[in-house]
């Protein structure tokens, strides 16, 4: 299985995902730049990613808390998500996301 993570330079990195890990942890484990300074407690918006529009509907629904926390992000788009709130399941094989400036810190 793979997820595809595009960095701020536009380079796409294929990453081997780990089942039941969050997307933030998967990206961090792959040594890609994701600040995630609150450690995954949905409190900081520094794991902000843009999800490929094709994949948006397949993701777990966004909770109110995540929407609130995204207020601390910049250039928030309709496809903005916090990677710490997306748990990887087999249905997400092939998921494509792009890192935000917030994640770069």
């Amino acid at each position, binding site marked *: 299985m793979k997820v595809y993570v595009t960095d701020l330079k536009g380079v796409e990195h294929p990453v081997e995902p780990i089942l039941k890990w969050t997307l933030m942890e998967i990206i961090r484990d792959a040594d890609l730049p994701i600040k995630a300074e*609150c450690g995954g407690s949905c*409190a900081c918006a520094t794991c902000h990613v843009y999800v490929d529009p094709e994949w948006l509907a397949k993701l777990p629904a966004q909770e109110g808390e995540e*929407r609130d926390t995204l207020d*601390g992000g*910049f250039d928030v788009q309709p496809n903005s998500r916090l990677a710490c709130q997306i748990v990887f399941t087999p249905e997400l094989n092939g998921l494509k996301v792009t890192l935000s*400036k917030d994640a770069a810190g």
Partner: protein
Amino acid sequence: MDSVTPLASVTDMSSDAISTDVIIVGAGPVGLFAVFELGLNDMKAHLVDILDKPGGQCAELYPEKPIYDIPGLPIVTGQELVDKLMEQIKPFHPVFHLSQMAESLTKLPDGKWRLTTDAGTILEAPVLVIAAGGGSFVPKKPPIKGIEEYEAKSVFYSVRRMETFRDREIVIAGGGDSALDWTLNLAPLARKLTLVHRRDEFRAAPDSVNKMRELVAAKKVDLHIAQIAHLNGSGGQIESITLKPDAGDTFNISCDALLPFYGLTMKLGPVANFGINLHQNLIPVDTEKFESDVKTIFAIGDINSYPGKLKLILSGFHEAALMAQQAFRYVHPDRKLRFQYTTSSSDLQHKLGVQ
């Protein structure tokens, strides 16, 4: 439980140096517990923290969130843990220097450290403990091209004096408590005040949101649901801001001051210039004393690194206990370190004020 206020707080600009046994940079859970371990071993501590309250990330990032891995506390919220630690260290009368950043460090001829904060507080002690976690909490800076040019001239991340903003055309950006509080406070002074937020929903206190809505309805505050795309101006003076709504075209609003309130982020800050060896913004330490490469400077909690390090509060507590053993040897070189249990030692119980 009720919140425990700091026992003493020093915020004046006194140029007189304060002498103590140990200076702790960072008043998060690990810095607070260090007060306890130092106190049991007869060392007094002063703490410096950039936040206006003790507790660090527990108090600032997740006060309401549950923590499940504190030994003996099956569930405790961030703020409850801070309150309990404050209660636990009360017998040792720690002194807090809050809303201040540890700015510079010099070594005195007698071997003591002199730490100066950005508020002018000067602390002197034979031992320095860095318990600064992920660094200092500082305002998030919007990644808008060229924003640095305007900073401190017409873009401000905090309000030091409200009068600075009298009769100005202000834009406040954000949807949290800081954005709403300053909207309510500055609206009466401003020539014009515009609040910009990315969505028509605000996570600030409901009472503030209601008051803001009333000001908007009374046309005393403008509200735009949009995000900031560009800053326009010259020589550091902002003249207008280009806003981008979710749907529709971008548009400009005139202004001469911008206050972005997007929350806080952590930056290592001046600690990086203290002359301590750093590796990837962390302070390498030994695992016997948790001392840095500079003798008498220790690092405990999330800011240190060593083989096997886990960034857990409980690890920080252990590190604080071991640090205090070596700190004792520096602070009381003529005394023999005595290992005792709080359960059985009348000496320790006396220090703790047990009746």
